[in-house]
């Protein structure tokens, strides 16, 4: 499962995408936004220090309960600052 990264999250992870290994996904039961965020924050502790961290699933802001599938386009959305 590939995660798109933007802004500060790109710096924290050190790349513009991050792939969640399939083994981790099944081992940890990553099936919704909350479990994905938990896994990413544990893997990249710097994500815990930013003001907010939203997740977009298929170009829409997603809630913690939103389920995620292999075919979804998933992105981390740090605090936006356009304008």
């Amino acid at each position, binding site marked *: 499962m590939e995660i798109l990264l933007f802004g500060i999250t790109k710096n924290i992870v050190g790349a513009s995408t991050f792939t969640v290994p399939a083994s981790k996904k099944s081992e940890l039961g990553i099936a919704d936004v909350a479990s994905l965020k938990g896994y990413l924050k544990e893997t990249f502790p710097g994500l815990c220090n*930013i003001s907010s961290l939203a997740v977009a699933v298929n170009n829409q802001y997603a809630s913690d309960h939103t389920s995620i599938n292999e075919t979804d386009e998933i992105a981390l959305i740090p605090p*936006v600052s*356009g*304008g």
Partner: protein
Amino acid sequence: MERIIQISESIDCTTIYEELSHPDSGGICVFIGTVRQQTNNEEVTSLFFESYESMAISEIEKIIDEATQKWALNKVIVKHAVGSKKPTEPVVVVGASSAHRDACFEACRYLIDTLKQKVPIWKKEFFKNKSVWVSAHP
């Protein structure tokens, strides 16, 4: 209701009047956001903007839908720049035209305020000796 949405390297401010003028409109209101050369008394050398373009466009579409439900608008434009921008350069343009001025004034304010809250675009400020992603840390 006609709309123009654009996320691009540069913004052409000379076309705004044509883009917003409409025979049923008695007024056009436009907000242009530009690069300010100082933040908290520090000199800004440039700003860098990055967008999640597909989602940004979808969020802008929603904001325009909301604005057109609230006010009777004839045309709306929302444009945002990406890449590196120097002081005084335009980085965002929102505009609306309507039969009477109240609608386009209020819509314009709504468009820029909501864009800043919801649209996935990020700004990095460059100073002489450092750079920071705006609003990233508490």
